[in-house]
């Protein structure tokens, strides 16, 4: 490609992304952000300065050639932009939607110093959507068969990425998924209005086209142990990407009352089991008139916004820290506010109060103030004595985080774990057991889609190396 001169337009304001209006979308499950048109994408691309030493790339956990793909978009070479992305990121349509760009690539964008950063995530999404909608067949470059077999446990972001990378290298890959649909958190956790399921389906189909076999409803630790996979089923290596599927509760009185959900349960019922279609679909979900969601991460906001869409009159976030500590993406917080989710910050639940039939009727909370930073670097919430109050609600959703599912570790005690069942790995993604690698939330304890993908990719490189050399350092 001849090097056309790139004339950036830094003074042009960041191109807004067309969105469904809040008053409409708060009652439907269609995607909130509609995506750039080709025109808007080109317009936004030209805000990129094409830095010689691009800082954005350093902020990207998978090191995407960001100026490269943006330049392709600016020049109207959308397909090329897609393949540039794919070189680094196996799931660009997904990352373009759910990555926390504001704390990664876009945080470092030099444009952000004086103006607003280039909308890297939106451009990524555009390039991926453009390719998907073009109906073009993806060109999978696959190495000749290596004769090696790899088992991937879990079909979330880490597992899908690892599977894709290994399939490219010519290895025979089988994914074992515990649920009846592949996609992990992308399917059971993240709601349709943020990540349409058809996007995940397309990516899964792509993997199948690359020769990856996906076994659903196959629970490792129950149907097979890892030892059985290695010794009896003929796998040469195993990647554990089982995520953080175990919901945490606060341990306060009343948590087992009817009407108290974990965010996992609430979202799984709605997303995976399609409870929003009840009674067309068989799985029900209870939505009261007044819903309190405890926590303020992305999962909490997903639950709050889902509750609104299911018809809750009022939905409240209850969060013990202040605005500055909110872990959710800024854009999601903004969207939630626009849709009418109410934020009760510096408020911590201390008890859930039930009625005589065992149903939730109120959440007892205490006000907090910010103290000194704790080990997480965030200011510790300190309860304000005497500030207790009752907050009438009929549904409480606990979204205070989740930990690793213990099924694998229980049957495989030779895989070393750290605190809370988090699997210990080295820099390459190797566990303490020969031939077994791990990545994603099972080693971080709960992070982002892109970090999980980054680890899946890294582990894939180490697995490939191991399969070729047989060396286990």
């Amino acid at each position, binding site marked *: 490609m001849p090097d056309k001169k790139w004339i950036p337009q830094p003074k042009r304001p960041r191109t807004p992304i067309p969105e469904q209006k809040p008053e409409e979308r708060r009652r439907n499950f269609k995607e909130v952000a509609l995506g750039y048109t080709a025109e808007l994408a080109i317009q936004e691309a030209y805000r990129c300065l094409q830095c010689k030493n691009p800082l954005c790339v350093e902020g990207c956990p998978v090191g995407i050639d960001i100026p490269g793909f943006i330049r392709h978009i600016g020049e109207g070479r959308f397909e090329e932009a897609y393949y540039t992305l794919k070189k680094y990121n196996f799931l660009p349509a997904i990352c373009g939607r759910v990555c926390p760009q504001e704390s990664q690539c876009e945080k470092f964008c030099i444009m952000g110093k004086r103006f607003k950063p280039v909308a890297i995530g939106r451009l990524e999404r555009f390039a991926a959507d453009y390719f998907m909608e073009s109906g073009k067949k993806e060109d999978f470059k696959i190495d000749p068969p290596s004769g090696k077999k790899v088992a991937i446990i879990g079909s979330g972001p880490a597992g899908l990425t690892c599977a894709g990378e290994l399939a490219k290298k010519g290895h025979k890959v089988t994914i074992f998924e*515990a*649920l*009846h649909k592949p996609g992990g958190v992308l399917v*059971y956790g993240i709601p349709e209005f943020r990540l349409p399921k058809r996007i995940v389906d397309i990516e899964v189909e792509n993997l199948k086209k690359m020769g990856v076999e996906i076994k*659903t*409803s196959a*629970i490792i630790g*129950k*149907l*097979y142990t890892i030892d059985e996979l290695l010794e009896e089923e003929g796998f040469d290596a195993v990647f554990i990407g089982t995520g953080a*599927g*175990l*919901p945490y*509760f606060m*341990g306060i009185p009343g*948590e*087992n009352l*009817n*009407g108290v*959900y*974990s965010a*996992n*349960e609430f979202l*799984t*019922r709605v997303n995976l*089991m*399609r409870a929003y*279609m*009840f*009674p*067309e*679909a*068989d*799985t*029900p979900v*209870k939505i009261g008139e007044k819903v309190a969601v405890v926590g303020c991460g992305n999962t909490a906001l997903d639950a709050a916004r889902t509750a609104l869409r299911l018809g809750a009159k009022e939905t409240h976030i209850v969060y013990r820290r202040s605005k500055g500590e909110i872990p959710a993406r800024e854009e999601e917080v903004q969207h939630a506010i626009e849709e009418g989710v109410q934020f009760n910050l510096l408020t911590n639940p201390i008890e859930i109060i039930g009625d005589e*039939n*065992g149903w939730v009727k109120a959440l007892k909370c205490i006000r907090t103030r910010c103290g000194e930073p704790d080990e997480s670097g965030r200011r510790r919430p300190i309860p304000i004595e005497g500030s207790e109050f009752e907050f009438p609600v009929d549904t409480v959703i606990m979204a205070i985080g989740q930990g690793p*599912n*213990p*099924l694998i570790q229980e049957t495989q005690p030779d895989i070393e774990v750290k605190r809370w069942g988090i699997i210990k790995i080295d820099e390459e993604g190797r566990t303490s057991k020969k031939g077994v690698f791990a990545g994603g939330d099972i080693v971080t304890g709960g992070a982002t889609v892109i970090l999980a993908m980054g680890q899946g990719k890294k582990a894939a490189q180490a697995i490939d190396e191991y399969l070729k050399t047989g060396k286990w350092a």
Partner: protein
Amino acid sequence: MYLIKEIKEIAPKIKKMVLEAPLLAKKHKAGQFVMVINTEKGERIPLTIADKDPEKGEITLIFQEVGKSTIEMGLRKPGEYIYDVVGPLGRPTHIINYGNVVCIGGGVGTAPLYPITKKMKETGNYIITILGARNKDLFILEKEMESVSDEFYQTTDDGTKGRHGLVTDELQALIDSGKKIDLVLAIGPAIMMKFVSLLTKKYNIPTMVSLNSIMVDGTGMCGACRVSVGGVTKFVCVDGPEFDGHQVNFDELLKRQAMYKDMEEIALKKFLEELKKKEPCGGCHA
């Protein structure tokens, strides 16, 4: 997709279904359960494997038709396919030689009880079985249970078979007779397990119960099945399904089991209306 080899009614509203599932037949251990999804839009229904034949590659499920999903599943025919079956889930029963074991089955709870009793017998335990039902027609697996028992008792609420009374009456009689009891294993409705546990607690007899709480995924992911055991929250699907009956908060379990009662009624009503339209004969299932 799982092929239905056989399906038949073994007692009023209780169906036995044999599925082709070679891997599950091979891997299942007594005390474990599976999640069954009848149709593409179906719920995930936790059911215990009542029997298995690893040679033929078959598992037997026994379920009671109580709501939309189970009634719909009961209408399926041999040769059709069940959408999905996931398992084996939960911890297997800890089976050792305890000595004298009283196995108590209430209603459809006899289905999960049978493979455990069988294994208990094989392990050298002296098996005293008590089966309870509302009336004589509602017993299931009587012959099977009797064949693995050293002593076999039945009770009915209406006196149509065995002792007129509850399983706890028979258990009380056993205790009063001075029989040494090393373990009681009770599986049935939560209310039955509650009263069995209350009784054995008085006499300090170790008691295991197998809980049937509401579940979604069955793999520890959702927490719908949480139950208080000794004041600590446990997940029935991964920590259970068996627990020390003396530690379980049955009142909480009973309340939680009723959480979706109104919605279950809505689903059932709609289903029966649709069925009526399809079967103008009047719908034998209404």
